[in-house]
Every structure is written in structure tokens, then in C-alpha cells.
């Protein structure tokens, strides 16, 4: 009796409930020669729901609480045979018990453990039957309720639809939970971080070197958490990316919407879509493998010292990544400009490019600006390209040929190296995440405002 078979039973009961109540409502409508409020199947649906929901609820409770309860019981029993002092010991014992249960391993020699394993199996089996019993029992009650309710007056469809609606509403509430989860998970850790490193120092410090000593006897760098070099690096790379992406993306969008023939559009649109679909880790690999060395070689050729992990290379590739993003959003903004404005300009004898430059672009400008803002927020949050192609070392510089690091790189670096949940080093990753979240949130809200404005202008 596995949880999934319990689930199947519950489903079965729900089906039965549907059939029974459906039949009953059919019978009622026949006997009384009176019209039911809802269709027979609505009564069926309602009954099925009444049978299903309590069953699912019981099963969920079992799934959530069973293992801790059973573990406790088994430990209790085992403690009569052996000394179990700590929770940890208990946990390890349970693992041994479960290994015996799952794999019937021959390695286990302790008879107590083997006995406990069979006991565990027995209890678990009992628990599952109890679950099944309660699930089906409550389900039957639900079905009975629905059965009794079935009648001419009862508005089964409305009731059923109401339940449906609650489920739908709950689903849309998940977005809120997610945001809440993000904010809370970032905030808690960040607050702990800011207890050690003052917020002001974090936001204005010019020195970033988070590698603090882990133990007392270790002599390491003193650790400083001034995030300005990270912000500067992030901004520089984003700026380079935008310098590549905005003109190319915008011009491409203009060409696609205003000049390209249908056939050309048919070819190029998928190209841009593929470009948009390429995972960023691939761009990162491409940057590290092709672009960065190429830039460096080019620098050597003309006598410019370009770092092998220059901001330029990372920014350039990020720019490529963002081109389709900008072009598709600008495309939308441009096509949203009503044809009548274009006609108005053309009818005055303006050439196409004059129309585009003087009428279409200004009219689409809010949308385009919104697109650019969204693209910036994307660039700021982009991770893999910079992890693979930008530097690791915080470096406060204005020279794009040097290597700089970004907020996201540092988050990855801090969290994939060491994992401990109390040092300032690890916590600083969450603080950086919070900064990132707030920054992109701000940009998004701004972008949405601008975009909404131009939508209003034409709707």
C-alpha cells in the first residue's frame, strides 16, 4: 500500500461518488418530473470534489508527518535495547534501519536494527492502512453529504464552480508567495550580514575582498565588504552590453518592421528567436572560448593591453545575448504605433526613413525606453556569461579592457565555494542578492510605468 495507491483509491472513490450522485440526480429529475437547478453531471462533479478533497487532505497529512512520527516510535523502541543519547545518533540509526528496509542489505549485523526494520515496516503498513481508512471514510462522508444535498433546489453548479474558483485563486496567489519567499529569504540572511558589516560600509566601501578567515588560527586577509567595485563592474559590463545591443537591436527591429520583405522576415525572425533561446551558459562558453581570446589577440596586435577576462569581451557577448530581447520588444513598440500616423507622415511627402526617425520612433519611444530598461535589468542580473567570461577579482576601474567582476559573479563564487550559513562571507551573497533584487525591481517598475504610458496613448 504505497501512497500512490492510496491516491488511486481516493480517485476511485471520487469516481464512484460521481457516478452515484449523477445517477441519483438523474433519477430525481425523472421521478419528480421537475427540473433540477443544475445538470446531473454538476451534482456528480460536486460529489466527486466532496469525496476527493478530504481524502487528499488526509493523505497530505500522512505524507508530511508520517516519517517523523514513525522515526520517533522506532527510536523509542530501539532505546530499550541500546543507548541513544543524541538526535544525531537517532538519525543515523534510522538510516541504518531504512537501509535494511530499502535494500535488504546484508551488511547490517545488529539484530536490533534488523528487528527494528521489520517493526518499522509493520508500523508503516499500519499507518498507511489507517490513512487509507480515514481518507476513504472522510471521502464517503463527503459523498454522503453531496448525496443528501442533491435535490431540485441545490445549486450544485454554482457550488462546484465556487470551489474551482478558490483553487484558481490560490494558484494565482503563488506569485505572491514566491515574491514573499524571495524577499524573506534574502532579507533574513542580509540582516544577519548587516549586523556584522554596516549597511553604509557595504554600499559605499571601495574594497571588496570577502575571503575572511574561517578559523581562529588562520591568518588571512582581513576581509572587507565594500561593494562599490562590484556595482561599478556590473554597470560597466551592462553599459558595454547596451552599447552593442541597443543600436543593433533597435535598427534590426526597424528594418524588420519597416523595410524587410515578408520573405526576409520569415528567415530572420527565427534567427532572432534562436539567438534569444540560446542558453546563457552557451554564450559564456562562447565568450571564454572565442571572443575573449580574439579581443586579447586583437589588443596585442594593436599594442593595447586587453585583459583575457576583459569587461569588453563579457559585455560584448552579453550585448549579443540582449539583441533579440531589445529587437523583439522594440518590434512590439514600433508595430503598436498606429498605421494612421505613418500614413499621415507619408502623405505629407516624407520619405520612409524620415517617417521612422521623426514620427515612428518618437511615438514608440516610451516603449523602446521600457525595452531598454528591461534589457538593463536583464544585463545586471545575467550570471553565466560573466561567471565564465568576466573576472573574479574586484577591481575598481573605468578601463573596459581590464577585468572587472560583477555582483552575480560574486554570488556564485561565494556560494559554490564554501557553504556555511554563518560567516559574513556567505551571508554577503544574500546581501548582494538583495541589492540585485531591489535594483531590478526598481528598473522593472520604471519600465512598466513607461510602457504602460505609451500603451495608454494608443488604446
Amino acid at each position, binding site marked *: 500500500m504505497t501512497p500512490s495507491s492510496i491516491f488511486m483509491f481516493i480517485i476511485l472513490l471520487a469516481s464512484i461518488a460521481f457516478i452515484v450522485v449523477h445517477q441519483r440526480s438523474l433519477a430525481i429529475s425523472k421521478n419528480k418530473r421537475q427540473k433540477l437547478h443544475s445538470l446531473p453531471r454538476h451534482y456528480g462533479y460536486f460529489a466527486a470534489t466532496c469525496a476527493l478533497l478530504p481524502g487528499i487532505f488526509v493523505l497530505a497529512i500522512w505524507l508530511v508527518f508520517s516519517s517523523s512520527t514513525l522515526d520517533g516510535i522506532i527510536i523509542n523502541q530501539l532505546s530499550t535495547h541500546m543507548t541513544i543519547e543524541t538526535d544525531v545518533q537517532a538519525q543515523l540509526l534510522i538510516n541504518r534501519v531504512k537501509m535494511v528496509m530499502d535494500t535488504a542489505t546484508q551488511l547490517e549485523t545488529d539484530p536490533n536494527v534488523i528487528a527494528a526494520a521489520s517493526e518499522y515496516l509493520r508500523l508503516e503498513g499500519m499507518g498507511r492502512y489507517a490513512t487509507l481508512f480515514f481518507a476513504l471514510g472522510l471521502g464517503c462522508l463527503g459523498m454522503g453529504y453531496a448525496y443528501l444535498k442533491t435535490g431540485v433546489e441545490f445549486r450544485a453548479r454554482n457550488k462546484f464552480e465556487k470551489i474551482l474558483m478558490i483553487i484558481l485563486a490560490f494558484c494565482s496567489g503563488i506569485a505572491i508567495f514566491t515574491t514573499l519567499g524571495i524577499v524573506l529569504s534574502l532579507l533574513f540572511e542580509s540582516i544577519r550580514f548587516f549586523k556584522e558589516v554596516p549597511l553604509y560600509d557595504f554600499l559605499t566601501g571601495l574594497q571588496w575582498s570577502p575571503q575572511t578567515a574561517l578559523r581562529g588560527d588562520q591568518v588571512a586577509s582581513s576581509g572587507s565588504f565594500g561593494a562599490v567595485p562590484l556595482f561599478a563592474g556590473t554597470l560597466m559590463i551592462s553599459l558595454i552590453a547596451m552599447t552593442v545591443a541597443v543600436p543593433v537591436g533597435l535598427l534590426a527591429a526597424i528594418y524588420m518592421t519597416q523595410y524587410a*520583405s*515578408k520573405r526576409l522576415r520569415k528567415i530572420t525572425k527565427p534567427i532572432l528567436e534562436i539567438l534569444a533561446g540560446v542558453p546563457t551558459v552557451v554564450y559564456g562558453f562562447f565568450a571564454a572560448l572565442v571572443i575573449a581570446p580574439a579581443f586579447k589577440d586583437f589588443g596585442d596586435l594593436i599594442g593595447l593591453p586587453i585583459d583575457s577576462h576583459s569587461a569588453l569581451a563579457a559585455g560584448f557577448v552579453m550585448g549579443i545575448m540582449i539583441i533579440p530581447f531589445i529587437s523583439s520588444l522594440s518590434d512590439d513598440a514600433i508595430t503598436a504605433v*498606429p498605421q*494612421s*500616423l*505613418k*500614413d*499621415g*507622415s*507619408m*502623405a*505629407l*511627402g*516624407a*520619405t520612409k526613413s*524620415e517617417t521612422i526617425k*521623426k*514620427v515612428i520612433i*518618437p*511615438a514608440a519611444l516610451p516603449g523602446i525606453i521600457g525595452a531598454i530598461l528591461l534589457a538593463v535589468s536583464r544585463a545586471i542580473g545575467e550570471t553565466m556569461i560573466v561567471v565564465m567570461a568576466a573576472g573574479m577579482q574586484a577591481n575598481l576601474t573605468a578601463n573596459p579592457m581590464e577585468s572587472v567582476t560583477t555582483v552575480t559573479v560574486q554570488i556564485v563564487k561565494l556560494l559554490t565555494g564554501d557553504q556555511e550559513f554563518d560567516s559574513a562571507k556567505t551571508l554577503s551573497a544574500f546581501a548582494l542578492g538583495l541589492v540585485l533584487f531591489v535594483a531590478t525591481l526598481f528598473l522593472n517598475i520604471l519600465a512598466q510605468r513607461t510602457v504602460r504610458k505609451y500603451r495608454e*496613448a494608443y488604446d
Partner: protein
Amino acid sequence: MNALNPTEVKNMLDLEKNTKMTVEGLNVFYGDTHAVKDVSLNLRKDEVTALIGPSGCGKSTFLRCLNRMNDTVDSCRVEGMIKLDGQNIYDKNIDVVQLRARVGMVFQKPNPFPKSIYDNVAYGPRIHGLAETSADLDEIVATSLEKAGLWVEVKDRLESSGTSLSGGQQQRLCIARAIAVSPEVILMDEPCSALDPIATAKVEQLIETLRGKYAIAIVTHSMQQAARISQKTAFFHMGTLIEQGETSAIFTAPAEEKTRDYITGRFG
């Protein structure tokens, strides 16, 4: 062949002199749709010509051929001859930019640019380089707005956006914008259909004052309007020009059955 008498000749010459645009055997296709079928029609400098007919009969299409606005529709193919002052406008060496400046157009829905009123009117003169100095430009803008009967209403708010005006004002602004490049012909495609009765009346009045200075062609759905403002009327049906003539004649004694049915509301 009989000899012509002097008055007749004078009339014909007069006609010739006053004819601004001539259309001969015009056929227009959108892909496979034959939207305008073998239409011939003249526009005279001193008259307002109204184009009427049920929806989809090709009025707009016809109108948009006169300044080659149909060039912007990919699938559109135009056959036949359209002459502006005797020159075929579909000639290869005709400059579309110049043509459209000479043949202005006003659309069904007022479509001011989302710029200031001033910039709306100045747009045409600027792109064509019609004003040497900014004083010239001011002058052009003022005159155009005045001609469009909008000057008094907007002279104190030239900087506010064209879209902030009311519908009727917007339509007159569009007319001013067309006038600003000193066109010779003005085409109007249902210029009043999006306006309320009062604004409609103002625009009709404006058309009346413009008559004589520009050759005007106007598409309208309202027979009443056609009767009020036009001197010539052309009735289209399913792409064909069924009948044309003096407005008064068409509305009182149409030659064709279809025309009569239409203007008495039998169909459409």
C-alpha cells in the same frame, strides 16, 4: 464631324484649364482582389468632388491612388493612367515625395502626430525645406492654421500636444498640416465620420472656404453631407464607377437604377 461653336470651345478649354487631375481606365488590385475597375474621373480645381458608395466599394482605394499612398501597400497593383497637370503620376521619373506634397491627404480618423501643435504643422515644411528662416516657418504655420480655421483656438497653446485637442480640432489640425506644404489637391477620406455633429459642421464649413483654392476630393458615407458640400458626385459600387455628374443632378435625378436605390436607402 460638326464644327464646334466658340462657346463650346471656350467651355472645353475652360474645362481643360480647370481640370487638375485626370484618371483614365484605372484598375487596382490587392493581390487577387480587383478593388477598382476601370474608373475614369476628373478632378477640377474649382470644385469639391464627393465620392459615395456602399462600404468596400473602392472609394478609399481610388482616393489613395491619387497620391500614390497605395505604394505603401505591398500587395497593391495599379493599372491605368492618372495625370496631375497632365503629367502621369505613375511615371517612373515622378518623385513620390514631391507628388505627395502636391496632393495632400486627410484621413478618416484624425491622426495628429504626438508632438506639439506647432511641430505638427511645421513637420511638412521642415522635411521639404520650405522655410529658410524660423520666422518663415512661423509664418507658414500661422497661415496654415488660420486657413484651417484653427488659429484663434490654438494660437496661445501652440506648444501643447496635438493629441490634446478635441476630435474636431484634431481633424482641422490635420487639414492645416496638409495645407502647410501648399498642396494643389486635397484628398479627404471620410474626414467627418469620427466627429460629432458640431465638429462636422465646422469641418464642412472649412471645406466650403477652401473650395476654389484647391482641387478637393472627399469620400463620404453620408449622402446628406455629399449633397451639402460637393459640386460633383461620383457613385461607386463594387469597384465600378456607376455614375458621376453634378451633385444636384445625381441626387435629384440619378440616371442609374443602382444609384437611386442607394441614395434612397434601398440598400447599403
